[in-house]
């Protein structure tokens, strides 16, 4: 009788066991917008970038945790002393997802297509140090070199963004070398990825990666719905959550959230110093005064911003580079201190006087200005409100104005009809060369005073010189020295007042194993190949 019962029990388990064996594991999360392209060379938006990261095979990958370069399709590489030529030795016996063999010809094809001006690849812009077309030489099936017209700063790191395409596959961009392949795209609804059957990586015990069979990327623009879906278990992760959501989730499901420490995202404000702006001359004089800018900066209580607005998930910002950028961060910089007495001294030294609790400039104008920011961003609105109260302590009346985003961009980029602006900054690229369009005085993103025909100040001229020098230098240590000086000048002159650097906050289901969120994008799934998710049958769930 007992034997009969055991047999019955085993028979009862059989269907469940076979179902578990057949049911593929699936990871689900949301894309915040429709991917604009599946062509890896044309990627210019976050959703397409996510698909490229999950499907594209690259020669060199920046390890998001250590920020070191890891060999992927290239077993090794060598950059010449001038920083113009890079030679790769490729991994043999690798196949594309459709079975087409991978060789040096594919790298040559990808680089030719990437650098072809007709392709209009945003990725190619980072490689363009000169107008000359790069020369690509294939010396064997596993050796290829690329020669650029001029030195390219941080050349090898740029290949993290170049997904290799097949020169011969009839499936063209659908043949990939990454861990996943696009299985189905339902416009407006979802992108389904399935495991690349020919992916070359295996784990320590020889099991072919990735572990998770399928990924479903739901297209969901509404972050509140995304949050509800996560709470219901309909999606497995949210790559980046704000501090409020993080704390709410931490209260409801503590094991589902992780603060990975300081991220690359900062909040900053700046004053309009544009000569062409329609501001009154006396206001332009205030905003061009370093003492005034530093005084405002020192009157802002950054510790309170971190504690109240970000609930402790942020730190006072030191400067343009976050400490999360391990190599390029200038560790000698400190955040501007919260020191009202020092702020008052700076203002007095610049001719400002306080009368009846109000600050007046040397010509008797009451100091009052507006701060614009984008409507709908609660944290920025809170920061603005707190700055408003902080500046009252030094007699400055601040008007906070929230604008819809197009109106805000119109003012800061076209009409220059604004006084100060509060916005965020995210340096996705760790290398400072990616910030040339911010720091060069002639650049359009030199927000406080863009498109200058010649540098308006001596310190801007020095920044121009240093940025150009670092961009043409090959040795990383020398480049670092130049860029440290840039960071120091920016901290001293305060054209941007860096307020806080946010922490990287992610939400990931406890069902997902091996997760190890980091500060760099893509925070929660940077190690996608190693993530595991046990298949849960109805009974086990």
């Amino acid at each position, binding site marked *: 009788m007992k034997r009969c019962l055991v047999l019955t029990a085993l028979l009862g388990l059989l269907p469940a066991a076979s179902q578990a064996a057949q049911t593929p594991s699936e990871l689900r999360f949301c894309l915040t917008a429709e991917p604009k392209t599946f062509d890896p060379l044309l990627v210019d938006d976050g959703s397409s970038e996510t698909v490229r990261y999950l499907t594209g095979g690259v020669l060199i990958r920046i390890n998001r945790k250590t920020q070191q370069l890891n060999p992927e399709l290239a077993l090794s590489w060598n950059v010449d002393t001038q920083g113009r030529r890079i030679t790769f030795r490729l991994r043999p016996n690798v196949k594309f997802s459709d079975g087409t063999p991978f060789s040096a010809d594919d790298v040559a094809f990808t680089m030719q297509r990437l650098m072809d001006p007709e392709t209009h690849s945003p990725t190619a812009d980072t490689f363009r140090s000169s107008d000359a077309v790069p020369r690509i030489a294939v010396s064997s099936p596993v050796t290829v070199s690329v020669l650029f017209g001029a030195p390219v700063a941080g050349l090898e790191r740029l290949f993290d963004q170049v997904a290799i395409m097949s020169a011969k596959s009839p499936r063209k961009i659908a043949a990939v070398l990454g861990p996943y392949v696009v299985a189905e795209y339902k416009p407006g609804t979802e992108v389904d990825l399935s495991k690349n059957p020919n992916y070359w990586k295996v784990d320590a015990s020889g099991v072919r990666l990735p572990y998770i069979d399928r990924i479903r990327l739901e297209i969901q623009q509404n972050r509140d719905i995304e949050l509800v879906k996560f709470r219901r278990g309909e999606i497995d992760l949210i790559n980046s959550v704000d501090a*409020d959501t993080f704390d709410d989730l931490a209260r409801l499901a503590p094991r589902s959230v992780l603060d990975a420490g300081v991220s690359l995202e900062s909040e900053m404000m700046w004053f309009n110093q544009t000569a062409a702006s329609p501001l009154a001359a006396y206001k332009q004089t205030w905003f061009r005064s370093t003492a005034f800018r530093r005084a405002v900066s020192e009157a802002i209580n950054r510790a309170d911003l971190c504690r109240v607005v970000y609930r402790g998930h942020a730190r006072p910002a030191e400067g343009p580079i976050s400490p999360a950028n391990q190599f390029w961060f200038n560790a000698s910089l400190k955040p501007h201190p919260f020191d009202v007495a020092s702020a008052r001294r700076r203002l007095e030294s610049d001719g400002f006087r306080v009368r009846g609790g109000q600050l007046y400039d040397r010509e008797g104008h009451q100091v009052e200005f507006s701060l614009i920011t984008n409507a709908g961003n609660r944290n920025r609105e809170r920061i603005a*409100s707190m700055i*408003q109260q902080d500046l009252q302590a030094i007699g400055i009346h601040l008007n*906070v*104005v929230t604008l819809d985003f197009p*109106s805000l961009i119109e003012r800061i980029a076209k009409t220059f009809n604004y*006084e100060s602006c509060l916005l965020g900054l995210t340096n996705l690229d760790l290398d400072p060369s990616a910030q040339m369009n911010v720091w060069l005085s002639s650049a359009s993103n030199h927000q406080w005073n863009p498109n200058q025909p010649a540098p308006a100040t001596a310190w801007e001229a020095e920044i121009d010189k240093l940025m150009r020098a670092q961009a043409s230098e090959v040795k990383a240590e020398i480049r670092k020295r130049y860029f440290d000086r840039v960071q120091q000048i920016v901290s001293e002159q305060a054209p941007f007042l860096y307020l806080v650097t946010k922490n990287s906050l992610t939400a990931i289901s406890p069902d997902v194993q091996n997760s190890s969120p980091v500060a760099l994008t893509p925070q929660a799934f940077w190690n996608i190949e190693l993530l595991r998710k046990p298949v849960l049958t109805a009974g086990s769930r």
Partner: protein
Amino acid sequence: MRRSQILAIAVLAALFLAALLSAMTAENQSRQFREIPGARPSSAFPLGTDELGRDRLARLLFATRISLLLAPASALAATLLAALVGGVAGYFGGFWDRCTVRVIDLMLSLPWLFLLLAARALLPLNAPPIASLSMTYGLLALLGWAGPARVIRAGTRKLRESDFTLQALAQGCGRPRILWCHVIPNLKPLLLAQLWTTIPVFILAEANLGLLGLSASEPFPTWGNLLRDLQNPFSVRPEMFVPLAVIVVSVACFKLATPPQELPT
């Protein structure tokens, strides 16, 4: 007057009185008690504090005062504008009437929210919060007259063609006298009804703008921006529903208090 109307007006008066009597809390509404952000209700803060440590009750009372002053003022402006445009079109008829009807149709088909956003973006940046809120309500009045104008035009036409107007004409009464002595006095109930109907529309319009963060600028509270606390479903607490309750009660009271629109024939 119906009993429900009396009750509604009493509730509105009580709300307004409470808001007026709270004048002493005007400073507290913007003061940030940064050591206690998001505090639960207590004797010091009966509705707790918001995310920046500001007194929720003080902010609600301040916002109530503003909304109950500015929304009726703006509705009055819209109704007067509607009376002028609709009344003249309805009374004189002909070409002017046809033109007015087209303009009213055009105004009613405009996406007012986008218009408001565009107009608001053009406001001077250094306007004080009360000025910017007044301008927002002013814009509502400029954009919100078309609906009442259509009703007033129809009412005026009806009065123009009524028996007593014809009788006055037959007895040799001049048009200005008919307008002044017969039409305008008889339009009063219609105008009052339009005024009372427009107030809750403007209150809700401001609430929509506030919910988008496009109403009064910081640190000024309005009913709309107080509702933003309800946007995160996981951090909602009972006391956060009080502003919503106040808006619902006020809008309902304005609707209940609306007088009947009958015109004499």
